[in-house]
């Protein structure tokens, strides 16, 4: 048990550097692609800007998930969701409505832990099908990856805006 946890934690610490480089490369590549597409349709209306920022966000998440690779549950789930969202956008909307309804029902004082666990499950991609222990592990990895993602994006934005 202890050995497994130490390996996972060391894996996280080891993988952050390579992850950062991989993510930066992929993200820059996708940014360049988005630029190319923008040249064809250069408009500055609000909707266009919203769409583009969403595309950049999706590119960031997908490049992060690809940089991590399929060994973590959350990256697999994220890639799966992104693919599904691209192909079936209407299905996702329906699912969203259902989850909103179910959120309002369970609220009791005894199940505070379960409530928070469910919140975490919603935040971490693919967390709905996870064991609680597994969920905590994946959350740790997800947090480190999000941190690196934010740092890299900040650096790119700073570089571009100079």
């Amino acid at each position, binding site marked *: 048990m202890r050995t497994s946890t130490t390996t996972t934690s060391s894996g996280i610490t080891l993988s952050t550097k390579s992850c950062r480089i991989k993510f930066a490369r992929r993200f820059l590549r996708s940014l360049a692609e988005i630029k190319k597409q923008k040249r064809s349709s250069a408009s500055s209306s609000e909707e266009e800007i919203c769409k583009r920022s969403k595309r950049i966000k999706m590119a960031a998440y997908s490049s992060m998930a690809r940089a991590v690779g399929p060994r973590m549950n959350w990256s697999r789930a994220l890639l799966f969701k992104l693919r599904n969202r691209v192909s079936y956008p209407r299905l996702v909307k329906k699912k969203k409505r259902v*989850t909103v309804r179910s959120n309002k029902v369970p609220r009791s004082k005894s199940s505070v832990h379960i409530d*928070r666990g469910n919140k975490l499950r919603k935040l971490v991609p693919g967390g709905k099908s996870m064991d609680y222990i597994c969920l905590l592990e994946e959350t*740790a990895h*997800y*947090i480190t990856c999000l941190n690196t993602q934010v740092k890299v994006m900040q650096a790119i934005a700073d570089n571009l805006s100079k």
Partner: protein
Amino acid sequence: MDPPLINEASFSAANPAAYSLAEIWPFGGEPGRLGLRMGSLGGGLGESSGNRDGSLEESTVTEQSGGGGGRKRKDVSSEDESSKMVSTSSANGLKNSSGKRMKLEGSRNENGNSKAEVETSSGADDKPEEQSTKPSEPAKQDYIHVRARRGQATDSHSLAERARREKISERMKILQDLVPGCNKVIGKALVLDEIINYIQSLQRQVEFLSLKLESVNSRVNMNPTIEAFPSKDQFDAATLLFGSHTAREYGQGSQAEWLHMQVGGSFERTA
């Protein structure tokens, strides 16, 4: 007290289930022999190979006398007691191969002492209890890292639950180290709240940065030669405006379920 002797052939043919049980329960033999074996095993159990020797011997013995079969099946039903009895006997100096000990209450230890003495002397009276100590040892070895303190339950379910709780607390410690300012917070619920807030803030930050990147990208794209400051300021203002607008849009649930955007949150943590 002596169980009736049955032929080897008839016993093994009649109930093979009991035969397999006899291999699991090492001390299923006739009580007369058991007393002798207890004497020999008392020295031998200190080593790790002592248990195996006993079980091997016993499997051969129970082929000859299958009378212990009925009694063994009773022991199956009373396994709740057996798991408790394991700890007493192991605490009394029968070393397991794993070297793990379970400590129970003092009164229980005393009971165990007296019982062990009785068993070594007569061996016949407390035979079911002595039998029941053996089968649950392999189950105990599954949870090597778990130790039961004084007065803690030692049946397999609570052991598993304790192991799970230890795992969860370890993961929580890792998470606490990851999330800044989470070490001072006491209580699992509050820690979880902090973690959730941190993840939400990070995701919000990603959204904000993507907006910023979009503006920068489009500015560079649309007129890459012009990089005047007023235009940049305009674009920053535009991103701020559109930022609130897009946040409202996400809040309506029309887009991006997987991003779990939170509406109206202040950027205290992101800044």
